[in-house]
């Protein structure tokens, strides 16, 4: 009997459950997509090439998954509380009809279970599609081919998703059960009758709050911009006041708005009394009174979402740019023991291992010497390189030759002399001066002629054998560097997208839930307006305007925060390399528009429909 009732309830209140279901489904989808990373193209590629970053990415995602699960749990609990509040009367009626509290709890548990199972199935299906999409995206980012890697449901990820969300649903069931068993029948029956207290605030208080809020925000911005992202975030005595000031400032601004906007609007009767502005503003203000707290939370969630997404994309581009600068040649081998073991004849070594001599398009064997100030006359350098070698390396990259003087320090920021890192400050010396210096290191660089992966495999095999028997060789190739950078890129991108999307989803879902439940409460008010002869256009405009106010205000403040935050973040990143701000801003904007805009549109349409339907008879309304 209960199963039937539960099923019917879910089907009947599908509109209420709609956003709940949507949010759950998105949550499951997001969670699954990132849990199943290990089965996705680029990650398989990393694992196959035994890149250590694969492990790092996996464990990072695992750790953050717990965090995301907590956020989603809070979101789902919140959504559940909203639903419960809307159904108070119905639940009260069950109790009044003689069902025991245990039975009503059971009913709720069944309903939650039903919704949970449906959203889990739907979310996993969507997640399967989304992970395919993400896989294709990352593959195309690194220009890898897709067909090499099959894609199927990852049982491990699916298992984790079911486990985490099962726990969350159990939690939700427990909470709603407790709520029912502790609720008083009277409160349940009169749930809808509670009037909102509207205490008009003195204008002076509102202005004071606004000014105070502005000062707090300005102070927080000043801390961030003066000390820079690196210090402001890491040092607790800067970080804590900055975050506190930012939060309090945001809170005060939202709190002051309710008293403020009304006065402002009222002093323009031509605006206030036109159309349904009067009604729209009053509706909004009556909510802002009680929702300034949630507006602040939404604003901060949006800030996190935009900030993280933009930074991760910006960082991503920066790492890529840094990679090209680090790998001028296909391979560089550094013989670190050349000073006491002597040089290695790499050409002979390779030929001995059966490599054709035309496998390499270019090679150069460069000796690096210890810098002796008595000879070179330059104190602050650790090594010396001959002019002809230096110019040979520069010419291969198409960089201008060393301009002089001789001997002289190689300017910082000039083209690199090896793939990977030399780790030395070099003096450029005339070729003949080298005879007076002792050998420090042998650096052998080469470019491949044929297929890079094949050639590299051969070279690595030859070197590995030598390395086992004799000396320590440091081998860095463009391919290995690229893979490492690809790992970093993926880590930044995955974490950024994962967290950013989670926060964005949370903010949008909370707003949508609030707006929808309010719109349903407003049905009676719209019925009155209709009886007074308000046209459909007026009603729908008013409904959409209310949603827009709720969605755009936190967004506006969050955008301001993000711009300041991104400025600081970019300053930090740009100390390492140049940042592509325009690109990251564009991508972030696109993601934001898609998710937040989608929720906004869906909510606005639903609210509009709620305002327009509902027949003629107005319901009770005090």
């Amino acid at each position, binding site marked *: 009997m209960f199963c039937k009732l539960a099923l019917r309830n879910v089907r009947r209140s599908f509109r209420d459950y709609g956003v709940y279901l949507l949010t759950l489904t998105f949550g499951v989808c997001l969670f699954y997509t990132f849990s199943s990373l290990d089965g996705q193209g680029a990650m398989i590629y990393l694992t196959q090439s035994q890149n250590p970053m694969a492990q790092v990415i996996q464990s990072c995602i695992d750790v953050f998954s717990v965090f995301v699960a907590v956020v989603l749990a809070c979101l789902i609990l919140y959504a559940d509380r909203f639903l419960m509040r809307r159904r108070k009367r119905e639940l009260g009626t069950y109790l009044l009809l003689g069902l025991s509290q245990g039975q009503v709890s059971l009913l709720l548990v069944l309903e939650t279970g039903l919704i949970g199972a449906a959203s889990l199935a739907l979310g996993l299906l969507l997640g399967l599609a989304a992970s395919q999409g993400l896989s294709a995206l990352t593959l195309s980012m690194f220009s890898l081919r897709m067909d090499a890697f099959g894609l199927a449901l990852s049982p491990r990820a699916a298992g984790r998703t079911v486990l985490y969300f099962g726990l969350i649903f159990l939690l939700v069931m427990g909470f709603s059960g407790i709520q029912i068993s502790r609720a008083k029948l009277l409160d349940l029956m009169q749930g809808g009758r509670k009037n909102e207290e509207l205490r008009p605030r003195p204008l002076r208080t509102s202005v004071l709050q606004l000014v105070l809020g502005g000062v707090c925000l300005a102070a927080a911005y000043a801390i961030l911009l003066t000390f820079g992202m690196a210090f402001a975030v890491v040092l607790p005595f800067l970080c804590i006041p900055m975050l506190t000031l930012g939060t309090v400032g945001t809170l005060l601004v939202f709190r002051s708005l309710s008293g403020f906007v009304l006065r402002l609007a009222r002093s323009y009767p031509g605006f206030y*009394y036109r159309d349904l502005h009067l009604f729209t503003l*009053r509706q909004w203000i009556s909510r802002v009174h009680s929702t300034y707290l949630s507006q602040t939370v939404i604003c901060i969630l949006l800030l996190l979402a935009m900030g993280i997404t933009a930074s991760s994309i910006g960082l991503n581009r920066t790492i890529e740019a840094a990679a090209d600068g680090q790998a001028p040649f296909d391979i560089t081998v550094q013989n670190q023991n050349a000073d006491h073991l002597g040089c290695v004849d790499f050409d002979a070594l390779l030929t001995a291992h059966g490599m054709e001599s035309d496998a390499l398009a270019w090679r150069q064997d460069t000796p690096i010497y210890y810098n002796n100030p008595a000879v070179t006359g330059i104190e602050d350098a650790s090594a010396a390189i001959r002019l002809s070698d230096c110019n040979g390396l520069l010419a291969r990259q198409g960089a201008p030759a060393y301009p002089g003087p001789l001997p002289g320090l190689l300017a910082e920021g000039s083209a690199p002399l090896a793939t990977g890192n030399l780790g030395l400050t070099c003096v450029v010396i005339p070729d003949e001066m080298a005879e007076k210096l002792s050998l420090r290191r042998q650096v052998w660089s080469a470019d491949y002629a044929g297929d890079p992966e094949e050639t590299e495999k051969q070279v690595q095999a030859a070197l590995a054998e030598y390395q086992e028997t004799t000396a320590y060789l440091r081998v860095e190739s463009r391919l290995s560097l690229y893979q490492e950078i690809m790992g970093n890129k993926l880590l930044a991108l995955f974490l950024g997208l994962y967290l950013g999307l989670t926060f964005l989803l949370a903010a949008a879902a909370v707003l949508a839930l609030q707006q929808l439940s309010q719109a349903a409460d407003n049905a009676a008010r719209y019925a009155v307006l209709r009886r007074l002869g308000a046209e459909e256009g007026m009603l729908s405009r008013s409904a959409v305007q209310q949603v827009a106010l709720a969605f755009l205000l936190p967004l506006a403040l969050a955008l301001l925060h993000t711009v300041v935050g991104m400025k600081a973040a970019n300053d930090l990143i740009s100390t390492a390399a140049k940042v592509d701000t325009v690109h990251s801003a564009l991508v972030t904007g696109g993601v934001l528009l898609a998710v937040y805009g989608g929720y906004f549109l869906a909510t606005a349409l639903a609210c509009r429909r709620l305002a327009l339907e509902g027949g*003629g008879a107005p319901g009770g309304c*005090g």
Partner: protein
Amino acid sequence: MAELLCVKDLTKVYGKRGAVTRALDGVDLSLEAGEYVGIMGASGSGKTTLLNCISTIDRPTSGSIQVDGEELTGLRGRALTRFRRERLGFIFQDCNLLDTLTAFENIALSLSILRTPAAQIRDRVEETAELLGIGDCLDKYPYQMSGGQQQRCAAARAIVTRPALVLADEPTGALDSKSSRLLLERLEVLNRERGATILMVTHDAFTASCCRRVVFLRDGKIFAQLERDGGDRRAFFQQIIRVVTQLGGEMEDVL
């Protein structure tokens, strides 16, 4: 005086074949401008259906309704909304004030909907509020006012647009006797001084005795009509009671 409302052979049938309810069964009614008419009847006699049809909220099955010579049954969509907005004023049993708006704003809202220039709004709201005796609580929210004040506020909202016809559905239904009397007295003043035409549905004989004319409905048909003829209200009240008793008596006969 000119005829304002003319209802001819109005019929409203609910349900399908087999289980038909005739809520209205050939009702003829005529109101002149400036009249104050009450409609009485037991529950299920069709009085609310009649009011809903006249107020264009419900659509009759057949018959015609004309206001100022304009046929209502043919109106659709925008024209209907416009007619409702410009020609009608409503007072409901539960006053249906918007709880997020002050009394002033509640009254002003119906002017906003009519697209009245903002400059005129303050004067018109205040004037109407004075007339209904709520000039001192315009800045209060509905929950800060008494039930009677709320209902008079709703009445002010209904007449501030100067409608041709004010429709009231059991306006005193949720009020105590003192508040009822105050509201009815104000409605009378409105009718007398502003010349507002009022059509009021009620099942309370006392409330009905304030009207100039009372129409009795039974089983969807007009059963009787009483005119006050400028006479004493108490005498009119006795007359109404007599008809109501007769109505009730016949009901018992039927049973």
